[in-house]
């Protein structure tokens, strides 16, 4: 089949990337001894390095494959994702990055439990981290499945499952060998490669169409059955009252969820201080702006040159738009390069997620809940490594189950979970002095629980042709994305639970410390 290019070439480009990065990971992490090395790379990265790595966390399979595919298939509605992804960084920059860096060490649990009762809050924070990371990881693994299907022309579900398992194992290797430092370097290398790749493709496409975005979009409309209507809103979400609400709900989850993802939050600990954390977000914002401008060109370019129907029919569906476009303009070699970069993004992001999940379990649950803060650091890291393996196995299973879903959409569910469980709690704990343990638990579990329940009873799970279980129907919640309900609900839970529960005068000193540290950075370097 000509559209898959040359599987041997694709595989070898990818294998070279894996070998080089594994070598680098091995070299940089020869001294991964302390917990700080493993979880936070010894806080030794600069703002610029971490900024590129931060954007790397988002230049994932979901962004590169899912969003360019979303634009190629749905035009304007796909573009909404791009906008949300960029604007969301402002939440991280203005509200979260510095306060988090100043008050935590390794995990979200550090910040949330800072001035609360340690064990219940850490357990809650770890639960939220594990659930969110698991959803996000499934999305990445599903993306890997689609990509493999396209590249190696493996169309049987079993063959794809084996390849997803292989991807999962390589990513666990990165984490086990490299810890945070290795993972960050993989992230940096891949972000640079991906940015170069999309920028060159976009410039080439624009050049082909006389540097007119309008000309690309004009031709795109001719290769989409909706014609010019694909440039208007509604191609994916339609115009019923419910689908409009769904669109708004998705938009809200995007903008509030991105900076609340545990593996992104954890990145802020890899820099030495708050001003470097701030600089890293500034860097990330620039790279994201460039990247998402490029996805606009690439998405419409794929629609124009490949055509929506051909993309939908390809193995991997929507997710294959960018690789197909690469084949169209650069032949088998460019397809090989683009696919290798896309594979690399999946590996790097999943490694980051695995690290966040394992850190949360080892640092919050094992060291602080089970061992009550008296864990031996070496044992804690061993637990973290074991957890990484378990998380890897779970995500391989989940990825195989979700194989074939649009990855950007799956990610939006993870974002809704992150915004519901983490954002309200982090904001309250940093900026609202009265906030207490009861409020923390309610806002985490209220947000997480309501979000999960709504997902289970939404059309995503059952009752529709595109559901995960299309043959049964137990859906009663009409929206595909629960953010519109669950995010405000978690803010409300946290607020009400706090004002209806007792103040915690014994925590006053810790509260003062947190306020001073979060805002001024005094005492943060301890």
């Amino acid at each position: 089949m000509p559209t898959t290019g040359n599987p041997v070439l694709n595989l070898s480009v990818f294998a070279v990337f894996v070998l080089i990065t594994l070598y680098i990971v091995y070299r940089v992490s020869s001294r991964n001894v302390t917990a700080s090395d493993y979880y936070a790379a010894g806080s030794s990265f600069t703002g610029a390095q971490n900024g590129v790595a931060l954007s790397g966390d988002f230049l994932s399979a979901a962004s590169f494959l899912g969003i360019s595919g979303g634009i190629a298939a749905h035009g304007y509605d796909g573009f909404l994702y791009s906008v949300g992804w960029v604007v969301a960084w402002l939440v991280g920059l203005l509200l979260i990055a510095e306060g988090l860096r100043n008050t935590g060490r390794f995990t979200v649990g550090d910040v949330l439990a800072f001035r609360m009762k340690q064990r219940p809050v850490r357990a809650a924070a770890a639960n939220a981290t594990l659930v969110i990371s698991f959803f996000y990881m499934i999305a990445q693994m599903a993306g890997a499945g689609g990509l493999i299907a396209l590249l190696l022309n493996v169309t049987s579900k079993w063959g794809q499952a084996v390849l997803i398992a292989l991807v999962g194992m390589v990513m666990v290797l990165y984490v086990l060998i490299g810890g945070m430092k290795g993972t960050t370097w993989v992230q940096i290398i891949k972000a640079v490669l991906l940015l170069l790749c999309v920028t060159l493709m976009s410039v080439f496409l624009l050049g082909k169409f006389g540097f007119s975005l309008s000309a690309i979009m004009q031709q795109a409309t001719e290769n989409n059955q909706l014609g010019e209507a694909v440039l208007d809103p509604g191609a994916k979400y339609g115009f019923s009252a419910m689908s409009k609400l769904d669109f708004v709900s998705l938009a809200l989850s995007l903008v509030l969820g991105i900076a609340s993802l545990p593996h992104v939050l954890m990145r802020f600990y890899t820099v030495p201080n708050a001003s470097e954390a701030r600089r890293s977000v500034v860097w990330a914002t620039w790279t994201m702006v460039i990247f998402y401008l490029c996805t606009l060109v690439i998405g419409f370019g794929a629609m124009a040159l490949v055509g929506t129907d051909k993309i939908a029919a390809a193995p991997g569906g929507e997710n294959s738009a960018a690789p197909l476009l690469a084949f169209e303009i650069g032949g088998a070699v460019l397809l090989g390069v683009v696919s290798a970069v896309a594979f690399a993004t999946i590996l790097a992001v999943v490694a980051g997620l695995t690290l966040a999940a394992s850190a949360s379990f080892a640092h919050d649950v094992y060291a602080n809940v089970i061992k009550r803060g008296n864990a031996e650091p070496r044992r804690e890291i061993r637990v973290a490594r074991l957890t990484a393996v378990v998380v890897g196995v779970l995500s391989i299973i989940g990825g195989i189950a979700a194989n074939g879903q649009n990855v950007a959409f799956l990610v939006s569910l993870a974002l809704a979970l992150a915004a519901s469980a983490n954002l309200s709690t982090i904001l309250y704990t940093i900026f609202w002095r009265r906030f207490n343990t009861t409020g923390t638990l309610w806002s985490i579990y209220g947000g997480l629980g309501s979000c999960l329940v709504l997902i289970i009873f939404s059309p995503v799970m059952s009752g529709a042709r595109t559901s995960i279980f299309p043959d049964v129907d137990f859906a009663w919640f009409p929206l595909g994305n629960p953010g519109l309900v669950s995010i405000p609900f978690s803010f409300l839970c946290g607020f009400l639970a706090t004002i209806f529960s007792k103040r915690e005068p014994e925590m006053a000193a810790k509260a003062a410390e947190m306020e001073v540290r979060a805002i001024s950075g005094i005492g943060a370097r301890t």
Partner: protein
Amino acid sequence: MGAAHEGQGYMTKAIRSPGEAQHEYREIRGFASFDDPETLSYVDSDGTPNYELIRQTDEFRVLRRRLTTFIFPMTALFLASYLTFVLLSAYAKDFVSTKVIGVINLGILLGLGQFVTSIIITLGYARYAKRRLDPQRKLLAEKTGVEE
């Protein structure tokens, strides 16, 4: 820039004599901290900072006010602008479908406008933090004798 300096100068003066005196004050503390209970009290005997006291200093209050008066209005601003874009896309289809440049419609331009505002706010905050927040943090660290 000028205004920023004036503001800080004023705040310092309100608490104690101008810059040089403060510098001298700090010098002394290194040698004879026992004679200097006011400064000493920001750090407890075991070396941990007394956060409750630090929280009540004017320097900290100014810092907190400067921070919150920037980040909360800005957050409201960009959320409003983003939600306007989203709501227009969902509920004013004909309006955002208006063609502006070739087949590029108003909606796409509004979306790209979000990119521009994001850059502006990001750079604006970086600049504000450098000029109005970081110097104030330094002032606070100097007064309390507690470094980052």
